[in-house]
């Protein structure tokens, strides 16, 4: 009897393995091998042979040293990319949570509004986005994409943003917070465009909260504010990690570091340096993800 059971488990294990085999082959062949190759490239000088193929010359850490010490723009672009990411991720997370809360209620025209909010995901192409940015700046009265344009617009309409900034500084608000807020306001259109998928994930999370919890909260006499912090927020907490991983990877995908690595490889034909750049940025992204996710995971309440 016992023997039969083990053989059934084994049979199921083999079937399961067969289901993932194509993916496993692909992962080993294209991902794992590529990551190892990228590490190898970053330690070597790569020359493409005229007859096809390439040869590697081991040069140690010189690519890394060059990228950090001698390269003109790498360090600067890397730090601005990471800085942008660190600014954008919390903004996108909270903005999409806020929008999901608004969109979750039943109201007339909800389908249309949700459709509009998802539009940026559909039109998420380099060419379309580029043209949209031009159109945005040409639409007089619309939201412009850069903070200098906002400054111009506000000064023309008689509202001086500097005046308010000074006012808030005088009130004793730290300047970093002000810079953050004005930066956030001026990037609002970018943030809206980047949060389509996140909003939908949050709506789904909100809908998976059992109504009985709200009922209990209401009977116990909790206010809307308390209900949000004691019921809604803890229940969507586990999904914040998914959102952060998605947002970080998504924002890194079209950051300037990627462009720099791309041009270094295919315009300057410096494959080793390009691999170094991508590896360094990837390792930094992963470190940030691990830190942030570890931090959140500790504070997350899991219902099940």
């Amino acid at each position, binding site marked *: 009897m016992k023997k039969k059971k083990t053989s059934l488990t084994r049979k199921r294990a083999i079937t399961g393995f067969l289901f993932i085999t*194509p993916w496993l082959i692909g992962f080993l062949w294209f991902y794992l091998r590529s*990551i190892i190759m990228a590490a190898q490239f970053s330690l070597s000088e790569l020359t493409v042979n005229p007859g096809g193929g390439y040869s590697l010359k081991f040069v140690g850490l010189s690519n890394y040293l060059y990228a950090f010490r001698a390269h003109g723009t790498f360090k600067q672009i890397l730090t601005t990319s990471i800085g942008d990411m660190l600014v954008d991720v919390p903004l996108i997370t909270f903005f999409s949570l806020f929008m999901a809360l608004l969109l979750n209620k039943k109201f007339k025209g909800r389908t249309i509004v949700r459709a509009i909010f998802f539009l940026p995901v559909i039109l998420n192409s380099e060419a*379309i986005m580029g043209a949209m940015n031009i159109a945005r700046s040409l639409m007089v009265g619309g939201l412009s994409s850069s903070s200098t344009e906002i400054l111009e617009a506000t000064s023309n309409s008689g509202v001086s943003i500097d005046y308010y900034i000074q006012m808030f500084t005088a009130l004793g608000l730290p300047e970093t917070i002000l810079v953050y807020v004005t930066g956030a306001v001026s990037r609002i259109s970018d943030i809206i465009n980047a949060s389509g998928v996140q909003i939908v994930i949050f709506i789904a999370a909100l809908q998976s909260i059992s109504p009985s919890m709200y009922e209990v909260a209401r009977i116990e006499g909790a206010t809307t504010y308390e209900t949000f912090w004691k019921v809604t927020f803890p229940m969507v907490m586990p999904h914040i990690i998914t959102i952060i991983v998605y947002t970080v990877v998504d924002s890194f995908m079209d950051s300037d570091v990627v462009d720099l690595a791309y041009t270094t490889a295919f315009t300057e034909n410096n494959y080793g340096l390009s691999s170094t750049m991508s590896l360094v940025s990837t390792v930094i992204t992963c470190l940030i993800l691990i830190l942030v996710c570890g931090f959140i995971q500790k504070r997350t309440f899991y219902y099940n």
Partner: protein
Amino acid sequence: MDSNTKSIITTGFKNFMITLFRVIVLVGISYVIIGPVLGIVSRSFFSDADNYNSMVYLIPQSPTLERYKLASETLDYIKTVSGSLLYSLSLMVIQVVMCSMAGYGFARYEFPFKKLLFGCVVLMIVVPTHTIMLPLYMTFANFDVFGIIKMITGSSVNLLSTPVPMYILTFFSCGLRSGLYIYIFTQFFRGLPKEIEEAAYVDGASTMYTYFRIMLRNAIPSVITVAIFSMVWQYNDTFYAKLFLVSDNLVISKKIASLESTIGNVYKIYDPNILELYLDAGIVLIMIPLIIIYVALQKYFIEGVERSGIVG
């Protein structure tokens, strides 16, 4: 006025304020999203005179279809668009079948190192594609399977500038965002009740039959989500298309990048402001198929994403 009516009035006022706030925020943000699209559509009808008339805003005085005519001729519109739709559609089908299989395996079967392997799926989502772009480029520039091709023909094959690399990658579920799709499918299959499968087994269905005829049928919400994501992202993708030098005739979003310069050279138009109008028309042309797909499937899509197990 007793306290009861007073409280009714205050709650009524409060509700009204909340609704007003919601309407203002939603209308404002919808405008931010729709605004540029409207701008592009209206500018694509502008004539030269409209473009320089600063009184003209959104509604052209003398609308013209000239932009569309030249843009569609230069893009070779019907041919390119059907080519790219076919390309992304076929990749989408492979993507759905292969990723759902991997997801099913992870969700329903126990095998050694399962946790570690699922960690690899997460790794696929986290590692940005640009890290592996160079090795991938090299792999497909000198393509070979354990030296077999070299043994037969004497040299490895260069698969670049054909769509083959993309098909190979997608077949082994390593294509555009495959990690995310495997993750979605795994979460969804985990949520399905085991009884469905057990009933099928008791009735004597084979594993493959159960999977294709019963499990996939039940996974329709996630299948639709992945299908549309994959279709749209593939249609819009320029990263892999540029990396593997896929022909412009299969990737319309790549062709649009050179539209302005091609029109400028062929028709001797040197004014960048006018050339931009042609680009606008081209953008509208490549958006049309996406909008049609989106409007047709919009209802299934958004609700599908909600039920598709991204949230688990």
